[in-house]
């Protein structure tokens, strides 16, 4: 049975372990559960807003109706989401496939995101290790397919709405 002294020491130690203190530490631990960031909306990326606004303008010009602007924004968001997913897919999957599917063993100690939202990419070796095996490739590939399918569907209906809005406007 644990002694009262030990329990007290545990409580004292636990009070000292309240997570990261510094701004950098908090930012790092906020990304602990992040794998590739594709489940988050593209709007969560600070640099995406400018790209969405530019593409929206290219789709409907400078003086669109509210309906046209709304539809074009949805097209732009979905399109940039698709580009982001494909970029991630190319980083994760293709090097392994292009290399004649020469899989290497998964080293868990080196597992970390191979693709970052700021476009920085980790080393090719890390990417290979992340994919690891046929089973891992199947899982990763399915995940990318799922994200891409959803974004494609969103974009398809947004383009249809935009076409309809342009006709009526």
């Amino acid at each position: 049975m644990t002694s009262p002294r030990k329990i007290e020491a545990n409580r004292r130690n636990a009070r000292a372990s309240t997570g990261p203190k510094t701004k950098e530490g908090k930012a790092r631990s906020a990304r602990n559960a992040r794998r590739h960031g594709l489940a988050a909306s593209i709007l969560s990326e600070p640099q995406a807003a400018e790209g969405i606004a530019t593409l929206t303008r290219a789709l409907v010009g400078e003086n669109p109706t509210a309906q046209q602007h709304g539809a074009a924004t949805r097209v732009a968001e979905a399109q940039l989401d698709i580009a982001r997913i494909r970029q991630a897919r190319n980083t994760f999957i293709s090097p392994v496939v292009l290399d004649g599917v020469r899989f290497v063993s998964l080293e868990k100690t080196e597992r970390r995101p191979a693709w970052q939202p700021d476009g920085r990419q980790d080393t090719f070796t890390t990417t290979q290790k992340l994919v690891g095996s046929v089973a891992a490739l199947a899982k990763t590939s399915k995940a990318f397919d799922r994200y891409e399918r959803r974004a494609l569907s969103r974009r398809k209906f947004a383009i249809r709405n935009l076409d309809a809005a342009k006709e009526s406007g």
Partner: protein
Amino acid sequence: MNWLDKLRQVLAPEDMRMFDLLGPPSLASGADGERYCRFVEAIVRSVSPDDLGDLIYLRDLIELEWDIMQYRSAKVTLISDQANKFWNVDPDSSTNDAATLSARAITNNVPKLRQLDLMIESSEIRRDRAYRELERRRAHLAKRLRDAVDRHSGAEIANDQHMHRAA
């Protein structure tokens, strides 16, 4: 020169600007950038899309067709590499004909080949959907054009009849 600079050279500035607007083009490290640029150039030059909506689907088609080609090429590489390994183990064997070596290579790599097949199939499904959407947009455009022409020619005929009666 990297593949992106090459792409900027082969595409017209306006086409490249449109491509950039649709999100940064990406290519896997290790992929043949020269070949990719030639592929993009051939498709864009032969179609010349003038509507951004069409260009969105065109970009989908380019990327999906490219993926399909890469996965097919990976299958061929996988089988030929493995067949070469079998041949190197025993170059004098009587079963070293191309068909037997390929069959052994395929049998030994069924899970990998199946995974590649699934990836090809998935890309093909998305590619076919892009084709259908393009056709739908074109059909819709054709219908709108036909309606506009019908309205215009109907008005012209009515006008002619009115003039004829007045004369």
